[in-house]
């Protein structure tokens, strides 16, 4: 038997669909330059993709046909040599829309396998976000702002080829830089892209993450119902009506907190979250009313508290809020928990103010696709500068 290589690409649905496809397809094409065989495919359950909900592509490569067939016989690989997360907030976990529960980003990594992340964060921040693993694995960062675009217009900021260059460095048995560059020239006829892959190859380093490093939380999971437990006619219970709740400081009871789907949460769909300045809120109701995800709990004192199990980070609340800087979307990398902001504010208003200002100040702006024509042309040079200069 020959050798089987498996690489997974975890990406944000729709936003990075083309990027994910470019990477997995080019892995196979580059391996082909060294007479290896391969297949690139998207995970069946992720289609149809939804904006922001994590999805996966796989590239399976083998040194001979029989080994490839064996690899292809599996629905999806059980373990991979490399996991690529093209958005750093995916380090917090992956909850596909097609299963129950949250899976750690590094779940499929073999012992000694490498997690490649595109990020502007330092390694410590990413390690802290990812769940712990029982054996050591490696982390490599391809420096840059995670590349987000949409279904139709692709932002060609060289993230695709820079990832390929990093793979050649990390797993030279799979393919050499030369093969990557040949495949890039065949595909894109672009010297600059081949150069970007080369620069990335030269710069890529990795560090080892030990089993005692990372998020110690047990990712939430669910028991699947057995077939004999399922209702007749595929009838399922509806969500119970919501209820009012208690203010932890004044013990006043009021407001409304809807019950929520217990088996699908938005913790890993989000790349940003709203932070709310309760002191300036005028209780206009718009964030609550216009939120497609009903994520705002109405508090007993009539404020609106974004519940982090339901917020998918779309930013509509910030867009509709009539008060300047009352709702601000902040990069999800800035947060380590999903606690209620309103409770924090109730308990310590001064402390909350400091926290809020710090979060807003430190937030690197994120872009989530097409805002106006010409926007990508403005964003790409900065990324190419990083590709060139590191």
């Amino acid at each position: 038997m020959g050798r089987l290589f498996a690489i997974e690409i975890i990406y944000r649905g729709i936003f990075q669909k083309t990027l994910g496809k470019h990477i997995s397809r080019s892995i196979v094409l580059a391996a082909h330059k060294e007479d290896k065989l391969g297949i690139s495919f998207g995970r069946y359950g992720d289609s149809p993709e939804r904006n922001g909900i994590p999805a996966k592509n796989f590239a399976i490569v083998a040194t001979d046909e029989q080994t490839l067939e064996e690899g292809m016989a599996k629905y999806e690989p059980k373990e991979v040599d490399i996991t690529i997360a093209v958005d750093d907030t995916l380090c917090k976990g992956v909850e596909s829309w097609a299963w129950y529960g949250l899976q750690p980003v590094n779940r499929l990594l073999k012992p000694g396998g490498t997690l490649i992340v595109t990020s502007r964060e330092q390694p410590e921040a990413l390690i802290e976000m990812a769940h712990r693993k029982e054996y050591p694995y490696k982390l490599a960062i391809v420096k840059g702002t995670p590349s987000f675009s949409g279904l139709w217009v692709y932002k060609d900021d060289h993230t695709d080829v820079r990832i390929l260059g990093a793979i050649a460095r990390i797993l030279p048995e799979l393919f050499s830089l030369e093969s990557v560059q040949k495949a890039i020239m065949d595909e894109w006829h672009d010297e600059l892209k081949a150069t970007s892959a080369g620069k990335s190859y030269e710069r890529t380093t990795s560090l080892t993450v030990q089993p005692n490093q990372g998020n110690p939380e047990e990712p939430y999971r669910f028991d699947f119902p057995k077939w004999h437990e399922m209702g007749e006619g595929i009838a399922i219970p509806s969500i119970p009506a919501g209820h009012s709740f208690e203010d932890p400081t004044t013990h006043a009871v009021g407001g409304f907190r809807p019950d929520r789907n217990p088996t699908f949460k938005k913790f890993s769909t989000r790349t940003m979250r709203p932070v709310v300045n309760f002191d300036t809120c005028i209780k206009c109701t718009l964030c609550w009313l216009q939120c497609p995800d009903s994520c705002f709990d109405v508090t007993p004192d009539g404020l609106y508290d974004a519940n982090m199990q339901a917020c998918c980070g779309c930013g509509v609340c910030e867009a509709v809020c009539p008060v300047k800087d009352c709702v601000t979307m902040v990069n999800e990398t800035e947060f380590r928990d999903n606690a209620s902001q309103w409770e924090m504010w109730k308990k310590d208003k001064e402390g909350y103010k400091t926290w809020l200002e710090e979060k807003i100040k430190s937030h690197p702006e994120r872009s989530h696709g097409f805002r106006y024509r010409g926007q990508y042309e403005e964003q790409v040079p900065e990324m190419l500068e990083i590709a060139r200069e590191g």
Partner: protein
Amino acid sequence: MATYVQIDPTQKLDPFKAVKKIPLEEFFTSGHRTCQGCESSLVMKTMAKAAGPRTIILGSTGCMYVANTTYYSTSWVIPWMHTQLGSSGSAALGTAAALKALMRKGKIKNEPINVIAFCGDGGGADMGVGAISATLTHPDYNLLILMYDNESYANTDIQLSGSTPWGAHTTFSPPGKVKRIMHHRWKKNMAGMMAVGHPTCRYVATMCMSYALAGMNAIRKALSIGGPTFIHSLDPCPKGWDYDPYLSHEMGELAVNTGVWPLYEVEDGVLRLTGRTQQLAAGKIKRQPVRNYLLKQGRFAHFTNDDIDYFQSKVDEMWNKWLVPGVIPFRKEVEADNPPA
């Protein structure tokens, strides 16, 4: 006719006077698997809120079926049932008839129960239009058919539908180097068609949930007026229209303010332009150029200035040349149509 038609009482659903009067309770809650900034799920939420707890919802296949009720989980609080892609009309009529029969036979309590069937533009304007039309001719069943229109088959990754606007990039109409415009049809005028074609239907309206209070009140009127009713909602879709999800609300406002999406209601045969559209038509506010709307969407990123001008000319025609502006495209004379080469 009146002696044969037996109309049951409906729930009394007065309009909400202000946003602060909207009840806090949610009947479509969190945990659906839709996109970030999904306006159609906002329509589901506000529709359920407007209708209240004594409501049965039927959903034909589409995003709002697949994303909201998959893998043995749901975000519906009130009873919901799936129905086939083209059968929102038949399912609504059948459910309303069944409720009527069960109540007549004394098998369930006699009380007005709202029946709402929703469909997407694919399920409604394309596949289901026959069944919806048939249903709207039955005056003695109380029901609402709500078409949420995201201008494509969005669930299966954006194939063009009868509701897709001219020139838009979809999976079926990718612009190429040789041929730039691959979609040459104009959006089907669904609400106008339903209003004109079904004189006994007491209420047809258009809405956009960027104007949530007006939209919810349209739903409440449709449910309380009696008989079968129809609402067509334009829902900006960040996935298929290719824009940053935070723009969802603004995109709906732009559709209305550029005149692309007219808001109106036809109540007992009387047409009334509503909201911003009324102000636009009365000249109180100026229509924005469609350029502002088109340039924010990736699906129109391949448009040249000529394409934008042509799109604008079609919207102008709708307001200046249609005999009933924004609603019915009858003209006094034949208009030349010169799409860009």
